[in-house]
């Protein structure tokens, strides 16, 4: 997959955020942006036919390990954000009886 495709994934997420009227859909769009970002970085750090990054001195043509290390952290952070956001969705549904942005934000108190 080329980096261009991953950028398209990010743009799809952005489009979803700017149009979706449902809170859960918005949460998923954030996740889509994040997945696109992870794919983008892994693609950029990838090496066709490269081998695993182990400091033994025997392997050559190793893949850059830093993108992978960073992206694991990003995945962890992303799952935290998703979990917290979905928890808030549940709470919002209990309070407002709806998870549409319009009905949730339109109401005072």
């Amino acid at each position: 997959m080329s980096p261009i495709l991953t950028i398209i994934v990010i743009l799809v997420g952005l489009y979803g955020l700017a149009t979706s009227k449902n809170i859960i859909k918005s949460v998923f769009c954030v996740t889509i942006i994040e997945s696109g970002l992870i794919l983008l970085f892994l693609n950029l750090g990838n090496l066709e036919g490269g081998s695993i990054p182990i400091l033994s001195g025997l392997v050559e043509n190793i893949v850059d390990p830093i993108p992978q290390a960073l992206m694991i952290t990003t995945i962890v952070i992303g799952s935290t954000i998703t979990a917290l956001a979905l928890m808030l969705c549940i709470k919002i549904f209990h309070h407002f009886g709806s998870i549409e942005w319009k009905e949730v934000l339109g109401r005072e108190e």
Partner: protein
Amino acid sequence: MNDFLAQIPIFLVFIPVVFSIIIYLFKAKWTTYLSFVSQVLLLIAFFAYLSFWRLHPGDHLLVFGGWSERIGISFFHDGLSLTFSFLAIFIFSVILMYLFKFRRKDHKFFFFFLFLEGIFLGMIQTNDLFNMFVFLELTTVLVTVLISYQKSGPSFQAGIYYLLLNTVGALFFLIGIVFLYNVFGTINIRVLQELIGTQGDRTVVKFAYVIMMSGISVKAALFPLFTWLPKAHGVAQSGISALLSGLVVKGALYVLIRMERFLFVEAGFHMNELFFWIGVVTAIVGVTFAISQKDMKQILAYHTVSQVGIMMMGISQIGLTPFYGGVLHIINHALFKSLLFLGAGILIKHYQTKKVYEIKGALKTFPIVAVMLIIAMLSISGAPLFNGFVSKSMIKYAVKGNFIKEALFFLINLGTVTSFIKFSSVLFGPKAILVKEKNPLQIISIIVLGLSCLGIGLFYQVIASSIFGITISTNLWEISHFLDYGLFLVIGFLFYRFVVKKDYLPFQKIRHFKLTFESANYMFVVYLLVVLGVVFL
């Protein structure tokens, strides 16, 4: 010994974090008092490091794990980060004092509160872009929890709005980091700073710059991305609002300074004018919204937006005086906005209402709180002798000689004065009969903030030379400044009396204006495209 002192930046992060975990795990009665111990330890550690930092000019970098600087995660301290670290510790301590009696038995709250302090200090000290992103995201998560802590409908609503919008901003910040890594093969800020001017593909670097600045603009609440701020700061409890307005927004501004003036300075994009105008628009829009509000906390929250605009006007400038004015305004705003929120919190708690016209007679009912509120109001509206005036005069150098800019600056000041004349209506009137709660710690906390506002206003020469190493040449105590401020007060009062108080239709329209989440994201895309257009053309 020196080896140990050089390691102190780690302790600044881990002291609050470890104490927060201890408080959460051991739910005995006395453990919450440990939060004070952590603040004292932090202050000791900070001053020990400060003396070490002064004596060893070549030893300000701390790389973890024995890696080379290029690969490893590192902390770096310069004057700016030290100033912000001290500000963070100070504001957290004061707000802890304010909240303590009310929250004494709430161990979970102290967990989030102290954890946020550790993360915030980490964000200030880090020298690694990815590390900075992680800290940014962690502050987002923790602040979301603190906003929703009341467990009411509006607080959940503000929480999710804040969380999603800021996560999008932070993710775009990360995309920028990805591009930078792809070009330079490092994410160390100091190494990048040297490489960025000479090497690499210009187009990709520009693209990374645009994306990172747009992402961080969401967190810094610049126009038109500030919509989450009034929601979040208006809904949270007063102590938390003070923390958010006073400090957490400044964290984003700090990252913005780091990007604009340190990381990308050699790249030569010269976006000062753009960010100056974004600051102007932010300030004007914030003030307009603030004038039309009737809810005390909403007024203060929109004023945070407008003051962020003024800070941007300062820190976007190349000239050192307006830049330091912007930084000083960040510090001053942290002091007087926390003071306003805390004072308003005491009033709201006793009067049981947030409506500004329903609270009367604070001067007679709560004399100390009212006097402190007056100090804060004079500071924020830029009265001579108070700290807001010093930083605003320094920022004014940026607009000197340009008629349009001067007029706009005048308008912003006038709006601020007007809306605080409106705010000051809570002070006057007959004494209210209320059940008063004795809380000496709370009173001490606001007195400390009030005195520090006055202190910076009076001893600005000493403070400017010790923090920034500059001298302010002009005398700020000339009679003409007092006359100017008096004129502001008169015009502001007339404007308030005959226009604002009548509550004409435009004000009602502005008050009920709401931006949906979709449009907020749409605004983000537009903002991104505008910055992209300006940078590439």
